[in-house]
C-alpha cells in the first residue's frame, strides 16, 4: 500500500515512493532528512511540527505524506540561505525568543504566515496567532517581542530596542 509522490521541499522537487500511512512529518525528517521540523506531541497540539504547505501553516504530524503530492513544502531550513537569517530568525536571536529551541522551528514557520496575513499585528493578534504553538521554556513574552521585532524589520521600520527592561 504504497505510491509514488512528488513534493517540492524548499524549492527542490523530490519524487519518492511512500507508504500511504506515512505522516508528512516523517517524510520530511526521515526520507528527506530535514530534521529542523520537530515532533513534540504527535497529537496536533504543540505546533513543533509546523511547516508551510502551499504557503499555509499546518501541523505535519496530522497530515499524510500522500496528501502533499504535487504540493510545495517549506520548512525552517528553507527560511534563509546558509549563513543568512530570515528577519524572524534574527528577531528570535536578538530578543532571546528561545531557550532550548525545541519549539522554535514551529514558532518561526507559523510566524511566517502570521506576518504575511497581517504585516503589523498587535500584541494580542500575535498571541492569538501563535496560540497553536506551545513553548515550555520562555513564557512566550520574548517570542512575542521577537515577532514584533521581525515585523518592524520586514516593514522597513526601526526595530524596537532589545535591551532588557529593569523594574526597580
Amino acid at each position, binding site marked *: *500500500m504504497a*505510491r509514488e509522490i512528488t513534493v517540492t521541499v524548499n524549492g527542490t522537487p523530490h519524487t519518492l515512493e511512500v*507508504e*500511504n*500511512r*506515512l*505522516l508528512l512529518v*516523517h517524510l520530511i525528517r526521515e526520507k528527506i532528512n530535514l530534521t529542523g521540523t520537530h515532533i513534540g506531541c*504527535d*497529537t*496536533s*497540539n504543540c*505546533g513543533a511540527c*509546523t511547516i508551510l504547505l502551499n504557503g*499555509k*501553516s*499546518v*501541523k505535519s504530524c*496530522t*497530515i*499524510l505524506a*500522500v*496528501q502533499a*503530492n504535487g504540493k510545495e513544502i517549506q520548512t525552517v531550513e528553507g527560511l534563509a540561505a546558509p549563513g543568512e537569517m530570515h528577519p524572524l530568525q534574527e528577531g528570535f536571536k536578538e530578543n532571546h525568543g528561545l531557550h532550548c529551541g525545541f519549539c522554535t522551528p514551529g514558532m518561526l514557520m*507559523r510566524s511566517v*504566515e*502570521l506576518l504575511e*496575513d497581517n504585516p503589523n499585528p498587535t500584541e494580542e493578534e500575535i498571541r*492569538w*496567532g501563535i*496560540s*497553536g*504553538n506551545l513553548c515550555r521554556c520562555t513564557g512566550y513574552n520574548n517570542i512575542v517581542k521577537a515577532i514584533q521585532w521581525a515585523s518592524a524589520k520586514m516593514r522597513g521600520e526601526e526595530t524596537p530596542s532589545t535591551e532588557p527592561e529593569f523594574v526597580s
Partner: protein
Amino acid sequence: MIPASFEYEAPTTLDEALDLLEKHGDDAKILAGGHSLIPMMKLRFAEPEFLIDINNIPGLAYIKEENGYLKIGALTREAELEHSDLIHSKYPIFTDASKLIADPQVRNMGTIGGNIAHGDAANDHPAVLIALNATVEITGKAGKRTVPIDEFFFGFYSTAVEENEILTAIHVPIPSNGTGNAYHKLERKVGDYATAGAAVQLTLDSDGVVTNAGIGLTNVNPTPLRASRSEQALKGKKLTDETIAEAAQYASEDCNPSADLRGDIAYKRAMVGILVKRMIQKAAERALS
C-alpha cells in the same frame, strides 16, 4: 503514532469519489481536513481500509449567497470562514465559532463539512447550524438531497450521511432584517473542546418583540442539542431580564451533560445558563445594530 495500513485514492471528480464509495462501502472513509480522522486513525479508534481524499475535487469550497440561502461548500476551511468578509459582516456567528475552533494551523486544514459529518456533539458547528436552521446538502449516485439540521445527527459519530454519500454543502436561510446571531463556548485553553457552548439567533420586529429564535448547545448532550423550550420562551415576547433568565434556565434544565475533566454536571448546567443568557444579549445587540 502511525495509523494502520490502508488503501488511498485522491479522485478529481465527485463522480469518481462516489464510485469508490459504492465499491468499498463500509470499509471506506472520506478524508477532508483529516483533523478528526487522522488523530482517530493514529489511536486506532478508526481503522478504515480505504481512504478517499476529496481535497483534489474542484468546486467543493465556496461561500456564496444564492436563491435566498447562504451556501457553504463542504470543503471550506475554518480559516476561510474566519477571514471571509461576507461571513464577518452578515453571519458573525461563524466568525465567533471559527475563531474558537482549535488553533490557526488546525483551522487551515479543518473543513466545515468534516466538522459536522464527524457527528461529534463536542464540535462547535453543529450548535451554530441548529441556531441558524440550516439544511445539509448530501450527494449520492442518485443525485442531491437536503436534510434539515434537526434530522442530521443520529448519535455519537452517526449522521444522516449514508456510507455511499458525500456531504457537499450547508445551506443557511438568509436572515431577514432585524436578525442577529452569536456563539461562544467556554474552553479551558486554546484547542480544547467546549466545556459548554451556546449558539443563538434572534429576529426582532420594530417593537423589539422576538419573532424568531434559534438556540443550539455544544457538548452538553450525547448529540448536538436544540434548546426548544428556551426558543419558545422567547418567541412573541420582548427581551427583558426576566424572559432572558427564563430561557437560560430552561436550557440549563433541558441539557444532559456528563461529568468529565471539564467539570461536573451542576457546573456545566450553570455554564449553559450563563452562556445562553450572554449569547441572547449579544445576538439582540447585533440584531439592533
